[in-house]
């Protein structure tokens, strides 16, 4: 039993880590640009597929970095050409736009790489289990978790200590003032969008090593990412981090006792949080209205 629980907690932390990577990207874009990026899960899938294409030429390690960068670049281009045109309009338009983009990206992936799952080969050094009892902690999982932790720490450091990061945080709180201080808000939003998409691409490469590739692999992560943001509180990236881990572990633990309820439980958590603490666990007062 203990092993079973441990097994599921590990699974929960790993899936939670992916929720967090997804949710942080969605949250950054939501906080600064007030856009819900429906296509985020499809950028994730695209990151995985690009790594799949790159690995035969460059090897895993280069692909791990280059693929998210390429996806981030694509995100930047899409923001420049399409998303920025709807910032000043009713939020329904940005939703519809990213929704349409998600359909297109998913269909293009299916057209190019086929509807069936593909495996992503990871280096042999990462694929062994630790021991008989802890078979579920493979080297790849430890590696994956460390990359996630490094990138989250890196993101928080970026937002705290770099000039661009400070501007992004300031823009989250009061974009008008930031603009009035002479900062190029258009560029700020584009770069912020690209960083968010980069995180999705990174999560995509890591996830494909674990679960393989398929055109709609990101869809199952998108809704939990929204819920992580709602539970953690809009406006607080730390809250998003906590929210993602919380629903990941809760969902995995529920699997032990009642497998059919593994999705339902995260909605119950969301409902409870909204009832008891409407702004979310660590949300800024007044942002989430």
């Amino acid at each position, binding site marked *: 039993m203990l092993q079973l629980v441990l097994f599921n907690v590990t699974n929960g932390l790993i899936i939670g880590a992916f929720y967090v990577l997804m949710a942080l990207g969605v949250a950054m874009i939501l906080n600064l640009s007030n856009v*819900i990026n429906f296509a985020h899960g499809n950028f994730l899938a695209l990151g995985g597929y690009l790594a799949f294409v790159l690995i035969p030429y460059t090897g895993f390690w280069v692909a791990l970095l280059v693929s998210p960068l390429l996806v981030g670049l694509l995100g930047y281009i899409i923001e420049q050409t399409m998303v920025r045109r709807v910032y000043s309009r009713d939020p329904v338009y940005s939703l519809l736009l990213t929704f349409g983009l998600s359909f297109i990206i998913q269909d293009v992936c299916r057209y190019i790489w086929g509807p069936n799952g593909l495996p992503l080969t990871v280096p042999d050094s990462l694929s062994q289990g630790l021991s008989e009892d802890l078979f579920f902690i493979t080297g790849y999982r430890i590696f994956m978790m460390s990359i996630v932790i490094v990138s989250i720490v890196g993101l928080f450091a970026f937002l705290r200590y770099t000039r661009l990061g400070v501007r992004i945080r300031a823009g989250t709180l009061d974009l008008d003032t930031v603009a009035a201080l002479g900062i190029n808000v258009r560029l700020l939003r584009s770069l912020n969008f690209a960083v968010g998409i980069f995180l999705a691409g990174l999560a995509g490469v890591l996830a494909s090593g674990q679960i393989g590739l398929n055109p709609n692999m990101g869809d199952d992560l998108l809704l939990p990412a929204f819920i992580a943001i709602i539970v953690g509180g809009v406006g607080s990236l730390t809250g998003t981090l906590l929210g993602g881990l919380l629903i990941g572990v809760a969902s995995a633990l529920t699997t032990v006792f009642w497998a059919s309820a593994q999705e*339902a439980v995260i909605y119950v958590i969301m409902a409870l949080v909204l009832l008891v603490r409407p702004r979310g666990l660590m949300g800024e007062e007044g942002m989430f209205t």
Partner: protein
Amino acid sequence: MSATTTAKPGQARLNGRPGVQPSGRPALPQWTTAAVIWLVLLSAPLWLSLVGGYTALASHVVVMALVAMALNFLLGFTGVMSFGHAAYFGLGAYGAGLTLRYLSDSTWFAMLNGILLGGIAGTLLGILICRRRGVYFAMVTIAFGQIFYYIAYRWDDFTGGYDGLRGFSRQPLTFGPWTIDIQGNGTLFYYFVLFVFGVCIALMTFLLRSPFGRTLIAIRENQRRARFLGISVDKHIWLSFSISCFFASTAGALYALLNNFADPTSLHYNLSGVIVIMVVMGGMRSFWGPLVGAAIYVVLQDYISSMTVNWMSFVGLLFVMVVMFFPRGILGMLQRRPST
């Protein structure tokens, strides 16, 4: 909040002038438009086969038009954006389907149960949703909408799971000694759908012309002003959301009867997005816009999905094109031209 409302100070659209908004754009159905639309709808079975359509397609259009107009009650006339209406549509479908499968062979009873299931679920969740605004309202509605998808998907011995709920069919309608065979006769079923649609449209028109409806429009135009006038905005948004969910689940119940089938994709947020694009494509500030949008979408999808497997790209492109080039929608553009 939004650039499309073009709310100017001094234009409090509170005093009820039925039909025409101060900006010259009609907000409520005008008699001529309504007459033309009803003529087209009523005569559809006569000319449909001439243009390559079929009756089930017409029924499908009317059903989707109903759910799109239900959403427009919220989106176009209250100004809050639900991106989770497929949930209540799908609940209506499952409610009707499950009733016919397990409980009774009365089509009326099945309709009633479907409507109640979706409507009550929407009303209860609305309590949690109605305090959010703008993009966050959308986000919470998406998130809550998806819960029913997972329930239908996981509870497979009751709902049929991923394969959907089969094993039921609509039954002839009985009024005392009379029966109407909507089971075998597609055209009669079309008129039944049209009848329910008509009742819902009449109710919507009545609600929108009532002081309650004018209050909703006031909230759409300027929430802060409405609040200062003593209107409890949250409560009105909750009521509007609930009403909209009841209409959406009515459409869902009809959808189950139309196909004799209910499946989890009718609960999925992808359908919610499709409903929103119908509304926006037709024109979200016009009463009949969603009907036009639904007709175009359903016919296009029917056509494209028979031509190519990559219909998702086409639908996605349609979304992007509408947002970039036709944000006012078809009726919105038609109506605006004379006034500017």
